[in-house]
C-alpha cells in the first residue's frame, strides 16, 4: 500500500490484476498464463475464474460484445434518421426555396429573414446529434430520401448534380457557449463559414486593412469571392445560401441574439442568410426573448421534430420487439430504463448510453462467460455465445466450454424447467441432458435456434396485435407499443383483459368489415419477412402454417360473400343482433355449408338496393344483420377466426422465461445498472462519512463489546478516520458550530482511542488502509510519538485538516456573523 502514500496525488489508478483479491475465489493455474495479456486491448475483459475460462473464450466474448454493440448502435442511428426524414426534407426544402420563393412572390413590403423554428423537445443534450444531422442534410446537395442512402448512391448523385453544386448551402452551427457576446458570436460564425480557425486566413482588404476576425466585412468579401463564377458558366447559377443554426435558443443571451439577428438582416441584401433556431420549449420563448423590432424582421416557419418518446418506442420496437439484435433486455432493467426516460429526462441519448452501458455491464462487470456459462450464481445471467446468431454445432465456442460452464448452464432456471418438462415425456433424454456433457453440447445450438425462432415469431405476432389494436379507434384501450411489449416481457400480456377485449371487437365486426379485416390480416402476414418461403426449419414452417390457415379462412370467406352477392337473397326481415346470434347459432348450426349461400352482406345488399330505396329505408337496413338462416356458416367462420387469433397469441406471445436458455439473451440485472445510472450522492456521502467501514473494509472499526444495542452508524469510534469523526460531531451540531467546542470534542475522542490503545492493538494501521496517504502518514507519526500522551499539536493538525476537508466538500463555511463559529450548510434540521 505504500505506493499510495503520496502527499501530492489525490487519486490513484489501480488496474485490475488477475491476481487481485477482488475476484479471487478459485484461482486456477491456467489463468496465470494470462497475466501478460493486455488489459486495455480487451476493454477490461477478464477471464472468469470460477469456470476456468480460457483466454480464447474471453476473446470471443469480447468480440461478441463489439459486434453486438456495433449492430445495436447502427440500428439505433438508422431508426433515429428515419424518424426524422420527413422533417429533415421539409427543412431542406425550406432552406432551398427560401430565396427563390421570395423573388417570385415578393409580396412583402420589405425583406424578411427566412427563419426556421425547430421544436426539438426539451432534452437539450440530445440536440447535438440532431442538429448535426440537420446540418449534414442541408449542406449535402441532394434532398434526403426516405431510404437510407448508400455511400455509392451519394457519390453518384453528387456527380449528377454537379451542375447545381453552386447552390450548395453553407451551414454553421452556433451554440450559446460560443456566443457569450456579440463579438464572439460573429467571430465564431465567420470562422466556421470560412472554414478555418486560422486567423491568418482572413484576407486583408484592398487597402491593406487587416480586419478583425469578427468584422462582417470579412464575411461579405468571402461571400463575394464565393459567388464569382469561376469558369464563366454564367449568371444563372443560383447563389449559395448561408445557413446559421442557433442550436439552443433558450440559452442564448437575448441581447446578443437580438443584435446578431439585426446584423444578419442588415446584410441580407448582400448575403442570403437563413436562420434555423432550435427551440426546446415553445414559441413563447421567441416572443419573450426578442423585441418586436427584431421579430418583425423574421419570416418564421415551424418544424416539429419527432417527439422523443416516439423515438424511444421506435428504438425499442426495432431492437427488441423485432429482435434485430442478439441481446435482449429483461423486464426489470427495461422498466427502469423507460422510467428514467419518462420521469426524468426524455433523453434518447441517455437511454442509448444506458443501454450501451447496460450491454457492456452485461459483458464486463457481470463477468459473463462466453460459452453457455453463468458466473456468479447470484447474477444468473448466462450469455454471450447464445447471442451469436450464427452459432452452429461446429462453433469454436462450444469446444471451449468447461465443466464450470456446464454447471452454470444446468443451474439456469429455464434449463431446469425444460428438463422437468422433458422428464414426463422423455425421461431418458432428460437424464442425458443433466449427466452427459457431450449430449448437452449437441443440444445447445438447437436451443439457441429455438430462442431465435421464438423472437421472430414473437415479433410478427406482436405486429399483428398492434395491427389489431390500431384497427379499432377506441382510445380508451389504446396502449403504446412499449407498454404492450413490457407486459409481454413480464409475461402477463396473454392473461390481460386487453386481448379478449380486442377479440370481442373483432367478433362484432360486420361481415363486410370482417372481410376487409381478414384481407388486411393476410396481407400483413404475407408482407412480413418471416413468411417469405425459405428453406425449411421447424419453426418457420410453423409460421407458414399460420399463413395457410389465414389464407384458407380468407378464401372461404370470400367464397361465401361472393355467393351472397350473386344470389341477392332478400330475406332481410329477420333481423337480430349479431352478437346474440353468434352465441345461439354457434351451438346449433354446425355444418351448414349450404346455408352460406343465403348469407347477406349488409353493404352489398345496401348497394344493390341503393337506387330503389329511400333514405330512411336504407337506414333501417344499415342496422340489418345477416338473416338467420344464413348465419350458421358465417358464424362458424367468425368463430374460427376468433380461435385462430387467440391461438396465435397464446402460442407465440408467451413469456420469454418459459423458453429454455432465455437467460443467455436476456439481461435482467438491475442493481448494477441502478448503481451506475441512478447515483445517490447524498446517500453515498452519508455512508462514506457515517460508516466508513463499508467502503474501507477495515476490521478495526468494530463496535465495542459492551454496546451491542447501538448500531455502528450512531457511534463515534476513535479508530475511524478523522474526517468521519468530525462529521459525526458535526451532525449533532446546530446551525452554527463553535470551532473550539468541536475541537475539544474531537480531541476527547482521540484521547479515548489512545487510552484503549494500551489494551488493544493500535488503530493506526487500519486507518492507513483507508483514505490514502495522509492518514497513514499521520498514523506513523503517531506511532512514533509518545504512546500515552497525545501530542496536542498533532491533534490540532489533524483537526484542521479534517475541517478543511469538510469545508472543501461543502459542509461548512466560515461566517462573520459569530466569531469562532462556522456555519453548517448541509442537511440542517428542516
Amino acid at each position, binding site marked *: 500500500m505504500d505506493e499510495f502514500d503520496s502527499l501530492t496525488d489525490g487519486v490513484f489508478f489501480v488496474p485490475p490484476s488477475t491476481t487481485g483479491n477482488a475476484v479471487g475465489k478459485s484461482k486456477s493455474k491456467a489463468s496465470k498464463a494470462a497475466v501478460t495479456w493486455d488489459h486495455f486491448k480487451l476493454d477490461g475483459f477478464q477471464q472468469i475464474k470460477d469456470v476456468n475460462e480460457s483466454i480464447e473464450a474471453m476473446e470471443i466474448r469480447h468480440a461478441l460484445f463489439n459486434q453486438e454493440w456495433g449492430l445495436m448502435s447502427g440500428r439505433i442511428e438508422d431508426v433515429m434518421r428515419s424518424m426524422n426524414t420527413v422533417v429533415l426534407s421539409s427543412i431542406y426544402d425550406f432552406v432551398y426555396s427560401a430565396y427563390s*420563393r421570395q423573388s417570385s*412572390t415578393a*409580396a*412583402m*413590403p*420589405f*425583406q424578411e429573414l*427566412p*427563419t426556421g423554428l425547430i*421544436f426539438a423537445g*426539451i432534452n*437539450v443534450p440530445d440536440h447535438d446529434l440532431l442538429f448535426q444531422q440537420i446540418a449534414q442534410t442541408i449542406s449535402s446537395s441532394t434532398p434526403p430520401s426516405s431510404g437510407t442512402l448508400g455511400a455509392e448512391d451519394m457519390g453518384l448523385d453528387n456527380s449528377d448534380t454537379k451542375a447545381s453544386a453552386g447552390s450548395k448551402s453553407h451551414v454553421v452551427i452556433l451554440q450559446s457557449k460560443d456566443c457569450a457576446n*456579440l*463579438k464572439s458570436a460573429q467571430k465564431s460564425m465567420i470562422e466556421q463559414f470560412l472554414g478555418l480557425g486560422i486567423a491568418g486566413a482572413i484576407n486583408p482588404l*484592398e*487597402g*491593406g*486593412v*487587416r480586419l*478583425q476576425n469578427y*468584422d*462582417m*466585412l470579412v464575411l461579405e468579401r468571402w461571400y463575394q469571392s464565393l459567388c464569382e463564377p469561376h469558369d464563366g458558366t454564367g449568371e444563372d447559377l443560383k447563389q449559395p445560401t448561408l445557413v446559421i443554426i442557433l442550436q*439552443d435558443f*433558450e*440559452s442564448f443571451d437575448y441581447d446578443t441574439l437580438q*443584435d446578431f439577428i*439585426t*446584423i444578419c438582416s*442588415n446584410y441580407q*441584401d448582400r448575403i442570403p442568410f437563413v436562420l434555423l433556431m432550435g427551440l426546446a*420549449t*415553445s*414559441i413563447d*420563448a421567441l*416572443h419573450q426573448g426578442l423585441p418586436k423590432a427584431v*421579430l*418583425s424582421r423574421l*419570416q*418564421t*416557419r*415551424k418544424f*416539429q421534430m419527432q*417527439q422523443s*418518446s416516439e423515438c424511444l418506442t421506435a428504438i425499442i420496437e426495432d431492437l427488441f420487439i423485432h429482435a434485430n439484435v442478439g441481446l435482449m433486455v429483461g423486464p426489470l432493467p427495461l422498466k427502469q430504463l423507460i422510467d428514467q*426516460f*419518462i*420521469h*426524468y*429526462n*426524455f433523453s434518447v441519448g441517455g437511454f442509448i448510453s444506458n443501454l450501451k452501458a447496460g450491454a457492456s455491464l452485461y459483458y464486463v462487470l457481470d463477468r459473463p462467460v462466453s460459452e453457455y456459462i453463468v458466473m456468479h450464481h447470484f447474477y444468473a445471467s448466462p450469455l454471450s455465445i447464445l447471442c451469436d446468431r450464427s452459432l452452429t454445432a461446429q462453433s469454436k465456442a462450444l469446444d471451449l466450454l468447461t465443466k464450470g460452464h456446464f454447471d452454470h448452464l444446468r443451474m439456469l432456471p429455464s434449463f431446469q424447467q425444460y428438463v422437468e418438462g422433458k422428464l414426463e415425456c422423455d425421461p431418458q433424454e432428460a437424464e442425458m441432458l443433466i449427466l452427459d456433457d457431450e449430449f448437452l453440447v449437441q443440444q445447445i445450438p438447437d436451443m439457441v435456434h429455438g430462442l431465435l425462432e421464438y423472437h421472430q415469431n414473437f415479433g410478427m405476432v406482436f405486429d399483428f396485435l398492434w395491427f389489431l389494436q390500431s384497427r379499432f379507434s377506441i382510445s380508451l384501450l389504446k396502449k403504446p407499443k412499449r407498454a404492450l411489449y413490457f407486459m409481454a416481457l413480464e409475461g402477463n400480456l396473454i392473461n390481460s383483459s386487453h386481448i379478449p377485449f380486442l377479440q370481442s371487437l373483432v367478433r362484432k365486426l360486420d361481415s363486410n368489415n370482417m372481410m376487409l379485416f381478414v384481407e388486411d390480416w393476410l396481407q400483413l402476414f404475407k408482407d412480413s419477412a418471416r413468411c417469405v418461403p425459405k428453406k425449411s426449419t421447424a419453426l418457420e414452417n410453423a409460421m407458414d402454417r399460420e399463413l395457410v390457415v389465414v389464407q384458407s379462412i380468407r378464401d372461404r370467406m370470400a367464397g361465401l360473400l361472393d355467393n351472397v352477392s350473386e344470389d341477392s337473397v332478400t330475406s332481410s326481415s329477420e333481423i337480430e343482433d349479431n352478437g346474440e346470434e353468434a352465441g345461439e347459432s354457434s351451438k346449433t348450426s354446425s355444418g351448414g355449408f349450404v346455408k352460406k349461400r343465403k348469407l347477406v352482406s349488409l353493404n352489398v345488399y345496401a348497394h344493390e338496393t341503393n337506387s330503389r330505396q329511400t333514405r330512411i329505408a336504407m337506414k333501417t337496413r344499415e342496422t340489418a344483420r345477416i338473416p338467420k338462416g344464413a348465419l350458421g356458416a358465417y358464424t362458424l367462420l367468425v368463430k374460427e377466426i376468433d380461435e385462430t387469433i387467440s391461438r396465435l397469441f397464446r402460442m407465440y406471445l408467451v413469456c420469454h422465461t418459459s423458453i429454455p436458455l432465455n437467460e443467455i439473451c436476456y439481461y435482467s440485472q438491475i442493481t448494477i445498472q441502478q448503481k451506475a445510472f*441512478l*447515483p*445517490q*450522492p*447524498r*446517500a453515498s456521502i452519508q455512508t462514506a462519512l457515517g460508516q466508513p467501514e463499508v467502503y474501507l473494509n477495515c476490521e478495526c472499526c468494530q463496535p465495542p463489546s459492551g454496546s451491542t444495542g447501538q448500531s455502528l452508524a450512531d457511534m463515534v469510534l476513535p479508530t475511524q478516520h478523522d474526517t468521519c469523526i468530525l462529521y459525526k460531531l458535526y451532525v449533532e451540531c446546530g446551525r452554527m458550530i463553535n470551532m473550539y467546542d468541536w475541537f475539544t470534542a474531537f480531541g476527547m475522542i482521540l484521547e479515548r482511542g489512545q487510552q484503549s490503545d494500551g489494551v488493544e492493538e493500535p488503530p493506526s494501521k487500519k486507518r492507513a488502509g483507508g483514505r490514502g496517504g495522509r492518514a497513514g502518514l499521520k498514523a506513523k507519526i503517531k506511532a512514533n510519538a509518545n504512546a500515552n500522551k497525545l501530542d496536542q499539536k498533532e491533534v490540532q493538525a489533524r483537526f484542521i485538516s479534517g475541517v478543511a476537508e469538510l469545508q472543501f466538500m*461543502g459542509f461548512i463555511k466560515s461566517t462573520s456573523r459569530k466569531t469562532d463559529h462556522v456555519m453548517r*450548510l448541509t442537511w440542517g434540521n*428542516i
Partner: protein
Amino acid sequence: MATSLQQQLHEAFPGRAKQINQILGFMGKPWAPTPPSLLINGNSSLGKTAVVKATLSAVLGGGNQSESEQQQQCRRRVPSRYAFLDCVECHTPRLIFEHAIYQLRNPPPSKDKGSRLHTQNGAAAAGTSEKNETAATSGTRKRKRVTYSPLEWNKCENVNEFVEWCRKICDTKDEIDEVEMNGSERTGSSCSKHQNETRYLVLDRAERLRDTAPTLIPVLMRLQELTGRNICVILITTIVWEKFRSKTGGYEPIVLNFPQYTKSETAAILKGDLPEGEDLDLFMRFVDLVYDVFQRNCKDLNEIRHLVALLFPLYVKPVKEGKIQKHEGLKLHRHIQAYFVEAMDKLYLREISSTEWSDRTLSAASGSLSGGSGAGAGAGGHVSGAPGGDRALTTALDVQNVFDLPYYTKFILIASFLASYNPPRLDMRYFAKVSNQGGKMTKRSKIAAAKKNGHDNMGSKLRQQLLGPKPFPIERMLAIFYSILDEEVEENVNVHTQIASLVSLRMLQRVTPMDKLDSIKCKCNVSYEMIKALAKSTRFEIDKYLFDFS
C-alpha cells in the same frame, strides 16, 4: 437637375418633403461648408434611414439616378463621399472607424438593393448595363489603386488615428484623382472640383454609441473642428438628444425631427404597395379600413404594411370568386372582420409568418372553392366558415407546439411555482404530512377565515400573485417537491440535473450568481396558466396548495 432630384425624392417619400428639403438645404452645394453634426430623431419606421440614405446616394452618387453617362463613370471612380454605418453592427469604436474609412475610400455600392426604393427599379437596370460596360477596365483599375495608393495602413484603433485618417482621406483624394487622370486622361477637369467636397458620416441607430465608448459622441460632434476638414456627421436615432448628452464640452447638433405620418400620408405610402393587377380603389379602401381598425394599437408603418400585404388577398378573394361585388363595402367588411380579430391578437408577434400565412390562405382558398362548388353554400355561410377553419388551423399548430416535460420535472416546476408564490411560513400547513386529513382542512379553513377578516374580497394588495415570483432556496423547493409527490422517490442525481436543465430553459431563474455554489436561490419563471396546465396533466390539484391566489 437639383429640382428634378428633389422632385424624385419627394415622390419616393410621401409626407417627407419638408425633411428632405431641410436635409438638402443643409447639404447645399457639394463643396459648401455644412453644419458639423446633424441629429435626426423620430419614432421607428418613419423613414429616417431610408430618407437619409436615398438623399445622400441621390446627391452624392451611388444611386445613379439622373446623371449622365459620363458623370456616372466619373463618380464610380472617385471614392465615396459618405459612409453609412449601423451602430448595431459596429459595436466597437474600432469597427466604426474602420468601416467608415473603408467606405470613404471605396466607391459606393453601385446597386443598393437594401433601400428597396420603389423608384429604383430603373436604376438597378442602369447599374447592371453600366457594369457590363466597365467590366473590362475595372480589373486593371482596381489593381492600380492598390499599387499606387499612398494610404497603406493596417488598423485604426482609437480616436486620434481616426481623426488623422479623416484628414488624410480628405487630402489624398486629389492624388487618387491625379493617378486616375494619368491613367485615363479623360475626365481630368471634372474630377478636380471634388477636392473640397463634404464627406458625410452617417451613423444609424446612434443610441448604441452611448454604450460603445463614453468619449466617442463628443468627438464625433466636433469631428469637423478636430480634422479641420469638411466633414458632417449625421446621427439617426429614435431617442431625443437629451439622452445623449454626456458631461461637458460637447457640441450640440442640429436636431431634425421626423414626425408621425398622418393618415393620408400613410395611405400615400401604401399606395406604392399596390399588388400588380389589382384595383387601386379597392386597395385604397382596404388600406383605409386597416388603418382605422389598427391605428389605435399600432402606429408602426411597417406593421401596417405587413398587415395589408397579408390580409389584402383575403379581402379580394370573394370579389375574385364573384361572390361579392367590388362596391359592396359593407359585405366585404363583414367578411374580413374575423380575420382582423385574429390578426389583432397576434399583432407584432409574427406567430404566423408571411409564408405560412400565404400557404394557408392558398390552401384554404382551394378548400373553400371545392367546398363551395360541391355544397353550393351561400356567401354568408362562407364568411362564417372560413375564419373558423383558420382558427382551427392555428389551434392545431398551437397544440402541436405545446411541449411536454418529463413527469418528475413537471413536479419540480410545480414545486418551484409553489415555493415562489407561497409564503414560507405556511409551508408547514400546506405540505407537512399530517396524519389526519381533517386537521389539515380546519387549518386551511382558518386561514381562509383570517383572510376574509383581514382583507377585502379582492385579496390583499400585497399578495404574491401581484408582486411576482419570490426567490426561494433550492432546499425548500425540494422539500415541497418530495411532499407533493405521491410516490416515494429516492433522491438522486437526476433531480438535480433536471433543475439545472430547467434553469437553462429559463423556466427557473437563478438569482444567486453562478460562482456561488452553496445556498442557491431560484425564481420560478413560468406563468400561472402554464402551471395550471401542467398540474392538470399530472392530476395535481394546484389550487389547493396556493395561498391567496385567484
